[in-house]
């Protein structure tokens, strides 16, 4: 199939970017979006041009490294699917595809389609982890938890940290990401001793890095991990709980 691709080209955060149009004549329906970019890049290298920079790693939807905006939608047309698992069968032959980086103030463009998502790392570093019981893996039966609690924690820990929720949010908010982080750690016994301290640190950091939530619900629509929208309410819940239990770590 023949595709026309408008790709955002930007040398660095300091320079302005613009869309450049390319044509790929030998695209195939079973190609994924990174494979299309690979194909285009070999074409560009053959022609002596600079290849397009884009983030990609596992290409099986579990690492959260990839992420571009396709035709205005973070990751692309297929719902709940990371960019690396989006295929050209979603597009018709002769289609015009627009590819640009994830857009949000918190995500400065590094080059072309690559953005700096370290704002999310700073939120995690502000307490979004478990630092107690960090020795060797304990025996699986040491702490027994109900099955549905384990499932609930797993649902929210499915977040791959790609940042699509933030790119999709008209407010540039990270509530789906922050909420899933807080929920799964607050659900499991290992996370409970630091629950309050974690909420204070993570929410304060998230407010410094991202915007407020208006419950538009766009985030959950693009989330490749299928994090439920209820995650966003955890931000206010955990912050309020930590504020009421002022001096307590748990």
């Amino acid at each position: 199939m023949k595709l026309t691709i408008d790709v955002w080209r930007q040398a660095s955060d300091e320079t302005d970017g613009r869309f450049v149009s390319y044509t790929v004549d030998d695209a195939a329906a079973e190609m994924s979006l990174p494979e299309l970019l690979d194909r285009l890049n070999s074409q560009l290298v053959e022609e002596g041009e600079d290849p397009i920079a884009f983030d990609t790693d596992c290409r099986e939807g579990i690492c959260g490294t990839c992420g571009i905006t396709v035709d205005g939608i973070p990751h692309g047309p297929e719902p709940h699917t990371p960019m690396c698992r989006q295929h050209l069968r979603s597009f018709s032959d002769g289609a015009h595809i627009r590819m640009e980086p994830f857009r949000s103030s918190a995500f400065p463009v590094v080059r072309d389609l690559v953005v700096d998502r370290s704002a999310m790392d700073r939120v995690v570093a502000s307490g979004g982890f478990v630092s107690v019981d960090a020795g060797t893996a304990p025996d699986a039966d040491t702490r027994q938890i109900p099955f549905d609690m384990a499932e609930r924690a797993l649902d929210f820990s499915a977040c791959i940290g790609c940042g699509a929720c933030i790119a999709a949010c008209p407010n540039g908010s990270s509530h789906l990401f922050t909420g899933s982080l807080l929920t799964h750690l607050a659900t499991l016994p290992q996370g409970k001793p630091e629950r309050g301290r974690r909420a204070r640190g993570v929410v304060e950091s998230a407010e410094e890095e991202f915007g407020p939530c208006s419950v538009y619900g766009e985030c959950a629509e693009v989330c490749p991990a299928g994090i439920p929208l209820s995650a966003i309410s955890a931000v206010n819940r955990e912050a309020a709980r930590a504020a009421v239990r002022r001096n307590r770590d748990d």
Partner: protein
Amino acid sequence: MSAPAPARPSGSAPVTRAGHRSRFSSVAAKYIMAITGLIFSAYVLVHMIGNLKVYQGPEAFNSYAHWLRNAFYPVLPYEGLLWILRVVLLVSVIAHIVCALILKSRARRARGGARAPSIRRRRGLGLSVFAGRSMLVTGVVLLLFVIFHILDLTTGTSPAAPDGFQAATHESSYAYSNLVDSFSRWPASLIYIVAMLALALHLLHGLVSSVYDLGIGVGSKARNILAAVALLVALVVALGNITIPVAVLTGLIS
């Protein structure tokens, strides 16, 4: 507050942050908006039910208006209940608007300000999405309407109020004739009807949003129920009120 310092790669450019550094957190602002919003929601529901007494005739409606001024006398002074409501509502509306403006400016900044490219919305533009996206517009419409409404039927200030406006006295109230006089002017009726449609949209998103903002986890099933309840409340309040100017204009009430 002993969160570890954020890790920063050495030698990198200074970090620009998209959020805010104010001591007033967005979480607190959203709690204030949710609580004050629920106060308004309860108020407009009760207000609408009271308005429907207009269908019981002039005497019932006027005596209801009179009772509002004398309620719980002598425990409360004359107009005591009204003034308690007025103070609560005034404080709430100021807090609601201030928080809305603070959050809006933070959201704009985080999205990228005027430079932000428009994003295509996965959710389309159905009624609930439209209601969410138009909160600021419907909010401004409601604020202007509340000012008009007070000038029209509370203070009786012209040109908002009808010519024959009669202020309430300690002995009696003229709410019925004031209402009929006001709604007999079709532009006034139109303002009321448009404002009620704005109220319905504002409630539709506001009721759903306030539940999330209060930190209540809503699953996908519960979300559908919540959306249905919000739609029901929004429609009941708006349609209940809209029937009154329509009834006046069609001569059902005179």
